[in-house]
């Protein structure tokens, strides 16, 4: 059943009118990832209980290819108790050819909520400067506990540091659909 659900005779409230808006959450500034331990970034959104959200996570990043001593960017989700993210991801392998437009083998996954997914870069020296994109789309389902949906990022392996790009870059688009 779609959300919000309208019925004849219902009072039109601003809450219900706003309920289906598409929200944007942006990463404010670049975040250099220096650790293989996942850390939070600016991408977070408050989820209601017993709800379903459709989302598109557009990740902008730079990384040195693993063959040149770099580490890929890793990302996963942190959710309230009982919630899960049904994710469909698309991202570069760790060691693509060098060059921003060379292209790469692509990892198409359906990982679990907290599975770290990698996105490799095409730079050959650090700091990396080629802007690439990685995608995570799907739905978020919450149970009885409301709370924050948070993107966690890290350096996927040892090597020079990847950068999560901020400003007019990384963004989450999300809306409640049930």
């Amino acid at each position, binding site marked *: 059943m779609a959300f919000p659900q309208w019925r004849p005779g219902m009072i*039109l*409230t*601003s809450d219900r*009118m*706003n309920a289906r*808006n*598409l*929200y*944007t*959450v*942006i*990463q*404010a500034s670049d975040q250099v990832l220096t650790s293989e331990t996942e850390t939070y970034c*600016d991408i977070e*959104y408050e989820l209601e209980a017993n709800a379903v959200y459709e989302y*598109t996570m*557009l990740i*902008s990043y730079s990384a040195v290819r693993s063959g040149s001593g770099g580490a890929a960017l890793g990302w996963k989700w942190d959710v309230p108790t009982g919630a899960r993210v049904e994710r469909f991801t*698309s*991202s*570069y392998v760790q060691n*693509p*050819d060098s060059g*921003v*437009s*060379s*292209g*790469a*083998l*692509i990892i198409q996954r359906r990982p679990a909520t907290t599975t770290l997914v990698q996105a490799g870069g095409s730079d050959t020296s650090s700091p990396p400067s080629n*802007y*690439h*994109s*990685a*995608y995570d789309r799907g739905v978020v389902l919450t149970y009885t506990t409301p709370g924050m949906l948070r993107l966690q990022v890290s350096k996927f392996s040892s090597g020079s540091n990847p950068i999560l*790009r901020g400003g*007019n*870059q990384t*963004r989450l*688009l999300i809306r409640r659909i049930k």
Partner: protein
Amino acid sequence: MIRQPFPLFIPGVRVTANVMNARNPRLVMMDNHFVINNTTTLTDTPLSFEMDGNAIYAYKLFISYTTSSSADLVYAWRTTPGVTPARFTHSNARDVPSLNSGAKSIHRRPSTTTPIFAGGSGVNNFHSAKEEGTFITPPGGGSATLQVAQATADASDTTIYGQNTNTFVVYERIE
């Protein structure tokens, strides 16, 4: 950082047709095919749309094209000054061997006018390129127009397909 959605309703506000229509997704498609050859100069396609001022739009672009592997396609945006996209692109790398061979993909976050490669495998083989993201607009609003060229000038035709919603943009105002 969470941006304010659009339209934002507050108690007591009048519900007008304009407000109700404001958040509708809009479809822009090309009415005709667009053909280029022997050129690496970016040229305006008929795919163009207007946006309000001081706004943010979410968009998805789907490009349907054919091109030889010796020419390949590139595409970019021409925008009114201040109309700035956050582009997230997904396209074939250059020189695709054949229609169903598969190819490396290019995932980029390029600037507005950066030509993005979309590789082809022959003038009769239909491939697709996708782009999504957001547009931010200046106070006066403005437009965005899709531009295309060949990556390498070639006598064979590079075609961007119109009609039957082949190449199109879906966009909606979100702030």
